[in-house]
């Protein structure tokens, strides 16, 4: 998973640079919002790669709801 983490960071870094410098930007807010979304994606990727088994949002929500509502 560690290899995946570095590969992912490199991938998101390339996307970030592309978004900020190589894309023909028409409007500045989109450029920075886009950069922010890519950075958020990178942070999420690092969290997943570093602590993979501990993070299960869907599992947590379903387990929490299972006793509260009827799930077929």
């Amino acid at each position: 998973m560690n290899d995946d983490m570095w590969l992912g960071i490199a991938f998101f870094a390339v996307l970030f640079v592309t978004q900020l410098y190589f894309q023909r930007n028409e409007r500045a807010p989109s450029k920075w919002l886009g950069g922010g979304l890519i950075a958020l994606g990178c942070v999420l990727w690092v969290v997943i790669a570093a602590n993979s088994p501990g993070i299960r949002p869907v599992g947590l929500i379903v387990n929490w709801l299972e006793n509260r509502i009827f799930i077929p």
Partner: protein
Amino acid sequence: MEMISNRQLVLIGASYVMNGALLCTMVKAIEAGYNDVWMAVPIAVAAGLAAVWMLAAAARRFPGQDLFEVLAARHPVVGRAIGFLYIFYFFILLCRDFRILILYINITLLEYTPLLIVAMLILACAVYMARAGLEVSARVNEIWMFLYVVCVLLVPILVAPAIHLHHLFPMLYDGFVPVLKGSWFLFPFFGDIIILPFLIGYPAFKLKSGTQGLLIGSASIFILIACALLVLGANVASRFTFPAYELVRLIQLTDFLDRLELPLVAIWMPTLITKIAIGMHLASHGFGRLLPGLSPRELILPFGALAVSCSFWLFRDLAEMFLFNRLWPYAAILFQLVIPLLFALFLRPARNRQ
């Protein structure tokens, strides 16, 4: 303004209906409905038709505007909030499609290739397609969906020698409840047809085009479910991860033409990649409509990148995907039936005050 033909819009709708259900929920529906699951398809279609009818009624009042535009213009605060909720919903669909395609490729085709490499390749294709605009995605989708629908129509003929009618009996052995359970799992996927009025407004989207898209997509699913039942039987089909794939693997023409599943997958996969491209377009287009200072085209790549991360974060494995599909119908009731009903009742043009 981008223009797409009625046929292209119908095929985008069909792709949305069919592609999600094919991989994500077919096995759950068969597991729930067992050998009567084919009866669940029309019930799920009825729910989808209700959603299309309500959205078409709302869209008809605002010619030339998609629903994001209407929401932002008509109710700047509440409308935008609902618009962002829908963007979130479409983004989850995008993540789900991304993840199921990566999982499918990993399980059936490229077992040892790192998942991120597969994700990068899909992302590159989808981003290029989406950045070129909806017209390009619609044209690509038109080519591949047409071929795919033809292939689906050929499947019953090609598997005809292996069909066993006794797999459908005894009918309704456990009553009608399993059928309803099967339709519970199918209807959120058929209801994905609601993306159409958010992509393009009336008169391009109308009741007829939405209904046609829904019927083509659901008929494809019906054919594949019926063939899986008739050939494999509910007992075997419900134990495969991808029953449709296992079904086409059984196709063998004469003694030397086998492994026909690979050309079929080669025709089907571009339809799913196009669906992902349209999903990215939809999310960025929604942002552009709700916040006019933003350029939708520049947000496609960031949305794609975020979708890669979120798809791995939300769905760690296939088990989690199936777990998610158990809960998804509740979200679908809200986004496909309740909110469209409110649109149909209350979303009306402002009256001119003199």
